[in-house]
């Protein structure tokens, strides 16, 4: 009997561990069926989006890429498909996904998220006729790839503006930042946010927390996000900015419960928030992944595909902030416009590392 119970308990635990991986995506699987693999169109453009972990339905980064795809479809008719990374997959699986698209005749392949950098670098030379792009991507080696576009953003500039907004509207002179994963990309958000806040008030207190050191689960852990933000609100902060993907939902819940404010990221998160959350989402730092995706598809369509590095900054309206919900005061907005102009003119240099 003892042997049975241990064995059975072990089985149930192991199954539960396996099943947790699918919890967040089960609810999105149904509507993906209707939208993906939609065909039609006459041109020879075929577009594939490869999402990172979380996929469509994160109300943030991946959804923005999907919005860009939909925008592009308004301008031109073409066939499209989507693929999504699963938790704990290896490089070979990512490469197989990209090769699968290329083998199926997709000539525009967009990797959504920097995690595709290595796999695109490995696959691209074998498919010279396919145009690859990586959102937030980079070239990991010295050899240049003639058919890869690296679409990067000046996140620090957008974060500077929401940092300034937080400093202008805080009542406690205490604000916070929750990062999903402690890597150089998310540190750009932190650096800009802190710099913007200090520009307004050099003495402001900015608490900084990262949910994970390196593991991408930090972008998909709403409970951790909520715990981190709740701690900051308890310590006296009244505005918390998150750059943590789907974990941000927890930050919004924390703001709602504490009756304080949060700042969204990537998309205009006020739009997708629940009715209870909306009064607490002060603004969102916009990272126009949709624009980058749409522009890249359009560049292939026009016959001169983008390649190499392209940075979407304030000047190009690649980053910015949202005003949905009217929680930013007119005074704040006018001051932010001033900062924006100074950044565009080069009078303010925003740091990219904390």
């Amino acid at each position, binding site marked *: 009997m003892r042997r049975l119970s241990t064995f059975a308990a072990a089985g149930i635990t192991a199954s539960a561990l*396996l099943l947790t991986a699918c919890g967040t995506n089960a609810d999105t699987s149904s509507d993906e069926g209707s939208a993906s693999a939609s065909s039609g169109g006459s041109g020879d453009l075929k577009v594939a989006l490869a999402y990172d972990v979380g996929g469509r339905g994160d109300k943030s980064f991946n959804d923005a890429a999907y919005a860009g795809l939909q925008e592009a479809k308004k301008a031109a008719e073409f066939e499209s498909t989507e693929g999504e990374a699963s938790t704990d997959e290896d490089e070979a699986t990512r490469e*197989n996904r990209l090769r699968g698209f290329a083998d199926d005749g997709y000539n525009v392949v967009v990797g959504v998220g920097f995690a595709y950098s290595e796999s695109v670098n490995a696959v691209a030379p074998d498919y010279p006729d396919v145009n690859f792009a990586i959102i937030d991507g980079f070239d990991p080696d010295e050899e240049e790839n003639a058919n890869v576009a690296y679409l990067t953003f000046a996140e620090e500039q957008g974060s500077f503006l929401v940092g300034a907004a937080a400093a202008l509207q805080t009542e406690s002179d205490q604000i916070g930042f929750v990062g999903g994963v402690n890597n150089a990309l998310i540190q750009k958000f932190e650096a800009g946010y802190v710099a913007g806040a200090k520009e307004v008030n050099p003495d402001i207190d900015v608490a900084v927390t990262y949910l994970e050191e390196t593991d991408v689960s930090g972008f998909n852990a709403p409970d951790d996000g909520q715990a981190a933000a709740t701690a900051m609100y308890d310590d006296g902060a009244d505005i918390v900015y998150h750059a943590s993907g789907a974990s941000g939902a927890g930050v919004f819940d924390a703001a709602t419960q504490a009756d304080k404010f949060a700042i969204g990221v990537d998309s205009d998160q006020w739009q997708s928030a629940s009715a209870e959350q909306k009064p607490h989402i002060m603004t969102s730092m916009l990272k126009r992944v949709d624009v980058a995706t749409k522009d890249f598809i359009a560049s292939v369509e026009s016959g001169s595909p983008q390649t190499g590095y392209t940075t979407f900054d304030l000047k190009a309206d690649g980053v910015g902030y949202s005003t949905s919900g009217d929680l930013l005061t007119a005074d704040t907005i006018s001051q932010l416009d001033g900062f924006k102009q100074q950044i565009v003119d080069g009078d303010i240099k925003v740091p990219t590392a904390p």
Partner: protein
Amino acid sequence: MIRRGFFSLLPAVVAVVLAMVVTGLVIALTGGSAGQFYSTILSVPIPRVSVTIVNQTAMIAISAFAAAIAFRMNLFNIGVEGQYIAGSCAGAFFAGSGLVAGPAVIPATLVVAVVAGAAWASIGGFLLVGRGVSEVISAIMLNYVALTMAGYLVNRYGVASGYTFTTNPLELNQQPVGFQVVDGPYQVWALAIIAVLVAIGYWVLINHTRFGFDLRASGASSTAAAASGVDAKKMTLIAMALSGGVAGLVWMPAFFGSVHKFGIPENFQSGLGFTGLAVALLGRNRSIGILVGSLLFAFLSAQSNDLQSVGVAPEIISITQGVVVLAVVVAYEIVRRLQIRREQESVARELASARPTAEEASR
């Protein structure tokens, strides 16, 4: 004999079929196409995917053997995950440090990985023996500690690669050539052979050594084992260390075969520890069972990659894998009870028929 083989195989087959049916039902209920799910999953894998399946099978199998060693001792080593992260991180740092030049780095790194994995597992072993801390609780916590610590070490002492950090990559003469089984830039990793060696080693150790006998005896009944002179504490420590040592090897095939550096998330594959636990249960801690179970899990994961293109979230395959494990555990328990009942009945029948004979003899 045939009947016995039938009984040991049937539950596994039933479990797999049941799991596929359940997954199909879930997909159908959530508005997807179960038919497309089946045709995608059950299609014959193209060559490059086959190579991925073989490579993944090797890593999952090593992880499952690590778990099985502890299971045999009635220990639930849920810490395989943390132990192989510790082994991978330590091994990759060592290999990248340049302390050992040339191909000699391969055996040296394997030793470092084994030692690191064993050391990490021993923390839980000592806590259990010395302080009575459940190995499950300590291992779950140590998994998080290992993941965070590996991340911290790489961020702090690694080299920048894009937005993240990695250990120093292997030199070209330190990268063993794999097995070219299909055309194209896809190879079965050289060190996938570790899985075969571990499988043989496990079978010999458990079934043909005194240590293996002591291990099984302690697992079956710790009191009986103690009465016959087996030191339970020593056995616990050794089993945990051995389990962790094997766990340390899990990622080594990928490291030497294709990745060549350690860095989370791009240059590491996490989660194999949990997969290994499930596969050890599925394979009922037997060498052949574990190898077949590993192949099944690797096959399902690799085939799920194409699911999104037919409108099904690839994570759905976790349901299949979870149900397989649950169903196998339940099915074998049912078979075990049936067999016990049948044995009891046959014993009772023999006793009943034996009695008159005895009376006749006394007459």
